Structures are given as structure tokens and as C-alpha cells.
């Protein structure tokens, strides 16, 4: 067991404490991605974690089990992932920022109550440290093959937010961001990382508390008799009231009206589902984060996310040395997909290369965004390793011919 900061383990705390030296470990660390995710969550004020062990995500649970009791939080290992997801929804409604972490087989189970979180607009964070799949797959090897499952895996129509860190430092930062987005737009937000990022150890710099921006819960200012729990504000997101605050509100996974009461009508369904989708679609500019390099003159664009972004520069540098005008687009936000930005770039670029550790998932989105304007070529990998940079390089040289 790593002793992360000797001397700070005071006695069990019943009151959560945030933003002090025991909760935010300001300084330089060498952390695994999984540990950085746990620390990012704590820095974002997460004080409830419910999970079920699974490789390669277990280190997140272990870190939370170690840390939470001493900063006024609660860790619980549930009986399965169905329960873990249900428990964090309950924790969130009790007013505590909540998280769970898993890998593909567990995500399959969580998606049931992920849908309940979408419908009841419950802020929380779900981490998926992806591994080789389907089914039990390659437990100790990584992949990026749950991208579409995260997007569409629960039943029905909805929008999701998913962030894809490519380093332990980004695991820390994007987990904070995930909590902030989940509170701002009121929905469960995914971190979609993978077993390699989760297990790689790198330097992580934790800033002082006052430099970490935390989006607080959108609490209603209205008195209980004027408050409608599902009446949206201008940005289509309703203000929240936690359990125990005297609002005595009702929430249901059934289609409901602004009072939160079941409303089994076509009109209610239309109004609610469109709002749930539009609260994300109309705010994509605020949600989407991408990193762009050498796009000004690019004829070829390589799109990547997560661990694959660590390999792409090797291929791109080699191609640029040979005079090929190739640029990089890295997705930090994978959902919602940055289709508008890609369509803009596609007005100039001639070809697109999309390496990912699956047999072609996000490449479909690129194709959709680019339309018939230019060629899109996937570089697939079934999982267990990163791409050989030369495989990407080869495709880059081929597409411009």
C-alpha cells in the first residue's frame, strides 16, 4: 500500500471536508491513471463511491476505499454493478457528489440505471477503464471498444457526455471536468479511458485548491411551494433540490411533467425527451474539448482519442518529415462528437485517418461529419496493444496518393 502523505490520516470523519490539504494533495506525484482519477474525483468534492472490483479499474475503488473515510466520505463495495450504479444515484440525490468505476463487463450492467440517471437528471460520474472485449475478453489488456456502448448502450433516445484522457495528468483534470459537466448539465458523465492509461505511471501535478475550479450543485433558490423539480432554466437544465431539504420532491424513471409526476402522454414524452437531448445539443460549444495540431495546411487529418493519441504523433512526425501535410485532431470530449468542427476542417482537408483500438467505431462518426467531401480510412486494432506507429504512417502515405 502506498503511503500517499504520511501524517494526514486523522481519525474517521463524519463531516466531509473539502479543499484542504487532506483532501487535495497539492504537489507533484507519480501516479497511475487510475489513482489520478480517484484523486481528481476527490478534488472535485466526490465523497461517495460505490463500485465492484474489475480489472483494470480496481485501483480506483482501492484508492477511494483508502481515502474516503478520512475526509468525511463513504466507500462501499456493492454486490454488483447494477447496485453500484443505483447506489451512486441515491448518493447524488442525498447531496453528495458520487462516482463509480468499472470496465466493459461492469458497464454492461450499469447501463440500466445510467438510463435512470439520464431520465431523472442525476449528476454523477461513471469511469470505464476499457479492456479487450466482448464478454470477458482480455481482462488484463486494454482496448477502446466500448465507445458506442457508452453512447447507445442504455435503451431509448438520449445524449451523453464522455471524456477520454490520454495520460494520468489528464485523468486527474478530466475527472474534475466530468464532475463539473455532470453538475452543470445534470446527467451521469462518462470517463472513457483504457487499461493502459489507467495503469501507466506518470507525473501528475495537483494544483492548490484555489486553482481547482469546482462547479457547485445547481440548487434551487425557490421555496418548496413554488419549486417544480423538472422546470428548466434558460439553458434547459432544471435547478435541483437534494433529499432532506424540505422540498419533498418526487422523481421517477417514468415519463414525467415539470412536477416530476408520471405523465403517460405522447405530448409529455415529446417535451421531456426533446429537452433532455437539447440541453446537451444546444450546449455543445461549452462541452466539447479538442486539441488541434498542424491543421492550417493539413491535407490529411489523423483523428484520435485516449491512449491512441500517444502513438499518433510518432506516425505524424515521420510523415511530415517526408513533406506530407498531415495534422492531428485529438478528442478530449468524445461524446458529444465534434461534428461541426470536423465538417469545417473537411472543407480543406482531403483525407482522414482514424486509428482506434477497435474495428471501427468513432470512424463512423468521422465519416458522418465529413460526408462525401473527403476520404475516411480507419486503422483498426482488435485490442491488447497500441498501434504500431508504422501502420498509421502507412495509411497516411496511402490516402494522399
Amino acid at each position: 500500500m502506498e503511503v500517499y502523505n504520511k501524517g494526514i490520516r486523522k481519525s474517521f470523519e463524519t463531516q466531509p471536508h473539502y479543499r484542504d490539504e487532506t483532501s487535495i494533495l497539492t504537489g507533484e506525484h507519480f501516479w497511475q491513471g487510475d489513482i489520478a482519477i480517484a484523486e481528481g474525483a476527490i478534488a472535485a468534492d466526490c465523497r461517495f463511491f460505490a463500485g465492484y472490483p474489475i480489472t483494470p479499474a480496481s485501483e480506483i475503488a482501492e484508492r477511494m476505499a483508502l481515502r474516503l473515510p478520512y475526509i468525511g466520505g463513504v466507500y462501499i463495495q456493492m454486490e454488483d454493478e447494477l447496485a453500484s450504479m443505483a447506489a451512486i444515484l441515491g448518493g447524488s440525490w442525498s447531496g453528495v457528489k458520487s462516482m463509480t468505476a468499472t470496465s466493459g463487463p461492469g458497464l454492461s450492467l450499469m447501463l440500466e440505471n445510467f438510463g435512470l440517471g439520464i431520465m431523472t437528471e442525476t449528476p454523477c460520474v461513471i469511469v470505464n477503464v476499457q479492456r479487450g472485449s466482448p464478454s470477458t475478453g482480455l481482462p488484463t489488456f486494454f482496448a477502446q471498444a466500448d465507445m458506442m456502448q457508452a453512447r447507445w448502450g442504455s435503451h431509448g433516445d438520449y445524449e451523453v457526455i464522455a471524456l477520454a484522457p490520454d495520460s494520468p495528468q489528464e485523468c486527474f483534470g478530466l475527472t474534475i471536468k466530468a464532475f463539473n459537466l455532470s453538475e452543470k448539465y445534470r446527467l451521469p458523465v462518462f470517463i472513457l479511458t483504457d487499461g493502459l492509461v489507467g495503469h501507466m505511471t506518470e507525473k501528475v501535478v495537483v494544483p492548490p485548491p484555489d486553482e481547482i475550479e469546482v462547479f457547485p450543485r445547481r440548487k434551487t433558490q425557490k421555496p418548496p411551494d413554488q419549486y417544480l423539480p423538472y422546470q428548466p432554466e434558460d439553458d434547459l437544465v432544471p435547478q435541483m433540490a437534494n433529499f432532506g431539504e424540505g422540498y419533498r420532491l418526487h422523481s421517477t424513471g417514468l415519463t414525467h411533467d415539470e412536477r416530476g409526476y408520471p405523465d403517460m402522454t405522447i405530448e409529455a414524452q415529446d417535451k421531456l425527451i426533446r429537452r433532455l437531448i437539447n440541453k446537451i445539443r444546444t450546449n455543445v460549444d461549452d462541452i466539447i474539448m479538442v486539441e488541434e495540431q498542424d491543421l492550417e495546411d493539413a491535407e490529411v487529418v489523423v483523428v484520435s482519442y485516449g491512449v491512441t493519441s500517444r502513438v499518433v504523433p510518432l506516425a505524424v512526425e515521420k510523415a511530415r518529415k517526408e513533406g506530407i501535410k498531415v495534422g492531428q485532431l485529438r478528442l478530449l470530449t468524445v461524446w458529444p462528437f465534434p461534428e461541426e468542427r470536423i465538417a469545417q476542417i473537411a472543407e480543406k482537408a482531403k483525407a482522414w485517418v482514424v486509428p482506434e483500438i477497435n474495428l471501427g467505431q468513432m470512424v463512423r462518426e468521422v465519416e458522418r461529419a465529413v460526408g462525401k467531401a473527403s476520404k475516411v480510412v480507419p486503422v483498426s486494432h482488435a485490442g491488447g496493444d497500441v498501434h504500431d506507429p508504422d501502420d498509421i504512417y502507412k495509411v497516411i502515405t496511402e490516402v494522399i496518393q
Partner: protein
Amino acid sequence: MNQMPEHPLERFLRMDRIPHIWCSGCGIGTAVTCFMKALDEAEIDPDKVVVVSGIGCTGRVAGYVKFDSFHTTHGRAVPFATGAKLANPELTVIVFSGDGDLFAIGGNHFIHAARRNVDIKVFCINNFIYGMTGGQVAPTTPLGARTSTSPYGCFEPPFNLPYLAESSGAVYVARWTPLHIRRLTHSMAEAITKKGFSFVEIVSPCPTVYSRYNRLGDGLDMIKYYRDNCRIENWADTKNVPMEMGSEIVVGKFVDIDKPTFLDYQRGQTDGK
């Protein structure tokens, strides 16, 4: 104009949602009345009460009570309630749901919450059948009973719920029927104020499907059946309280013990380390 006097329990009900969906003669309504009276008797701050339901006819209870109330997915009321309670231990968290919801799809959650002694209360309407979906066989359906999916009679032995609850770790276990209004109310109040995982089974008539499939008459006939066939035996060994088609029903308060809860243990185990 004369104003209707407010019903004493109106402050606990979402009157703007009445009439409710339950059939006439259904036991759920009576059980909800007892529940409201129990909350009154327990004298706890209504603003700190959370009622959680799963899916089913009983699952609709959360929608009618005027507390913070959450209607979850099928089977997941207990883990949701676990999260709500652990995140804010000040709350009194009560699960009100059906036998199929709690013991088929949600069975694993129930036994683990009891084992951990999470301080939540579980009130279960046991009508021996899946009411909401039209009367399919449940893990509580007695051997031989007919349902839409056991047309030749149920051939799976049912759970004995008090025994399951006690052996899983519940600190309070009772069983009553809607005939036993006063005792049921009192047990619910005891469970609400008890520290730890508490379970009350409410054996309940479902005239619309269970009674119809098994020719047991209407709601009133079931209440008469309870009158003639229930035997009150407090502290009965839960091993000895299974129910069979046409048999007597042992009711009573069976278990009331004290044990540290999940949070007590967490505190004890981590202090000073």
C-alpha cells in the same frame, strides 16, 4: 361553501395525484395508510424521510406519498436507498416495494443490504404474484398456485421471506396482513425508529390477478381468509413460518435485535488508523 375537512394523513400524501391506480380490494392502499400512520406514530421529521420504490403496482407507492420520493428501476430500490442513506445518514430511508421487485430481480440486493446492516427499512407487499404485468409467477408464489405463467400450478418452492431476511442479517423482522391494521402500523413505526436493516412483510390480497387465477374471491374474501387462518405468534422461529396454498399464515414480530450498522463498523474499523 363548506370546505372538506382535511384528512389527518393528507399532509403525508400527494393529494394532487389521487385517485391512485390500485384496484378496489387491493391491499396496497391499506398498507400505505398504515405506513402514513406509522410515520405519524414514529414522530420523525417528515422533511428527512425518503421513500424509494422499485417497479410494480407496489412500486407506485413512492409517487403518492408526500416525502422526498424516488421511483427507481425494477429491483433497484434497495441499492438506491443504500446510496441515499450512506451519503446522508440523517435521512430515514424507507423502501416500499413488491415481492417480485425485491426478491426476484432485486433479491441479491436485499440479502446484501441486510448482511451489511445498512440502516434502511424495507416494507414489502407480498401478493404472491406479479400484479402490474398481469399476473405472472413470482419467487413467492406458493407451490401449486396458478398464475399466467404457471397455468398447471406453480412448481417452484417459494421463499419464506422472514426467514430469508433474518438469516441475511436483518435486525427487525415482522409479518402482518391488511387485516392487522393496528399491529402492522405499530410494526412499521418500530421498524422506522429501529437502527439497522428492518423488514416488514405485508401479506396482501391482489383480487385482480392472484385471487382470480386461484378462485379466492374478492378483496373482502381474502380479509376473511386472513381472519380465519392467521395465527399471531410473536418471536416465532422464522424457519417455521413458510406459507403454503390454503395453509395458516403465521404473523407477528419475529426478530428485534441490536447490531452495529454498516456506518458503525466503518467508523470503528478506521478510527485512529
